[in-house]
């Protein structure tokens, strides 16, 4: 699963919906991670618009926490402010940030591993890049 997905999923147990600790899930630091860094500048150029479009859907604090769980503490503490209009006049620094974000959010795959709900303690497995969020009968 894309690292981006960690920003969208919480625990599936209904009783955890009200708990703030059910999102984001806690990712095991032994997760197997694959990086498919995109080097093709033309694809990166095209991805800026796409990235800015998803940026406003991202919960930055949750992203910081997940990255820290997985051993990456390099993200800026605040979400970069970018709009579709600002794409017309990006400076080199902003381009670099977008390129890094693209690689982090879209091109970083969690292939195998597990994630745990801090509220109920249930552990979900990630296998071949797809997380399994099904629940045993006593939790469903």
């Amino acid at each position, binding site marked *: 699963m894309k690292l981006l997905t960690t920003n969208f*999923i919480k625990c599936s147990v209904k009783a955890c919906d009200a708990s703030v600790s059910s999102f984001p899930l806690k990712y095991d630091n032994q997760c197997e991670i694959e990086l498919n860094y995109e080097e093709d500048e033309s694809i990166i150029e095209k991805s800026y618009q*796409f990235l800015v479009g998803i940026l406003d859907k991202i919960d930055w604090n949750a992203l910081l926490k997940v990255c820290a769980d997985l051993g990456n503490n390099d993200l800026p503490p605040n979400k970069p402010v970018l709009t579709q209009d600002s794409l017309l006049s990006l400076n080199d620094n902003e381009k670099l940030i977008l390129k890094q974000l693209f690689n982090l959010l879209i091109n970083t795959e969690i292939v195998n591993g597990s994630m745990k709900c801090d509220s109920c303690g249930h*552990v979900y497995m990630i296998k071949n*890049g*797809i997380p399994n969020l099904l*629940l045993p*009968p*006593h939790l469903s």
Partner: protein
Amino acid sequence: MPKYLIQLSQCHFDFRIPELESLAELYNISVDFKSIQYDVHYPYLIIDLPDAKTAALLIQRSILTTGIYELYSEGKTYDEIFMNINNDFSTLIKDEEFNKKTMKFQLHTSNKRSKYTMPEMVDIFNEFAVLNIKNKINLKSPQVIFQIFEHYKDVADETPSVIYFTRLVQLSLRSTGILDKLRLNKRPYIGTTTFEPELSLVTCNLSLVKPFRFVYDPFCGTGGFLTAAATIDENTLVLGSDMDGRMLRGNSTKGSTSQHLNNRKNKTPNEVGLEEHIQNLKISKNVQGIALNFEYYKQSHQLVSLLTMDFTHNALRSNLPIDSIMCDPPYGIREGIKVLGSDNPDTLNNSRHSMKDGKLAYLHEDYIASKKQYSLDELIIDILKFAQARLPKNGRLAFWVPTKDKRGMDTLVLSEYDDLKLLYNCTQDFNQWSRRVLVYKKI
């Protein structure tokens, strides 16, 4: 306001006006389709629109039309055509910028028994000399296409019942090859229940799939709707889930990866290398299943999440803004309808404690969650409940159901559910059975 002629595709009649009406809402174009004269068996629709830009916007993403044309004249004969030429045309040919463009003429006939030969067509085009169009002709890549439509009321008729003289404004996605691109026999990963491309694209339009907005399919199976949603607009954000993770990953017996490509006879030259290309993709990108299709269509970045999940126990965080929900849930005919849980009290009790390999069984990586049967009507209510909870105002839900369930009873159609209002109920007929799409809007 100028008049525009829309050429309709001659299939899925029930879906054509709902699709156009949906596209008008998507792009904020005010058209009252109820006041427009519409005959199911007539291949053209004439509407008033403010300008060509609006006309292009309306039709560009459409699947059930072939294109939109600015209408300059109509009549029963060519003499009438030249007499009835409107002001929009006179203004156009006086425009100097327009006169610099190259042009060509085209003729399309509908319901005519024998097609025109080339010399016959050229004779007709030559008659248009009376209009004094000064543009240079370029047959290969003209900047302007004048299009003539002749419609014959009866195939036996010698003369057309109506002729239209128009200029092409915008071809639809249908006319620019999207159906061929998504053809199932050219798609690397499909399954026995993969939804056909044409109506899955129409479903995308009916549920107003938008750029930079999430679209979610809670029963995505082999990802037919997801692929359609990513193709119809290159900036949609696609989410899919299914209870059966094997379908998503592509190691289910119900799905086939590219074997159907191998077995195909009469491959065209550009398909010969297809099999090899897909094998290379599988290896170099290390993907299979739905992800392989997204890699193949070069839209991997749009596939935001694929989850093995029961949508009634949903893990997508509740403040995630999902604008469109569309699905083709199991009908209980070819595949069973299931939800997480168990009706057996023993299973329920054991679930908490039973062990496997010294580990709690439910935390074991090979654990298979138990599921119980439920009915199609319960499922429909659950889909509506979910959409009611998750869609924003004006968000849409489109889902397919059979018109009759396996007992032969009519399936549930609610005209309202809480803030959801039924907009469309369109039926697709097969020989033995039929299914329909229900489209709801959150008000």
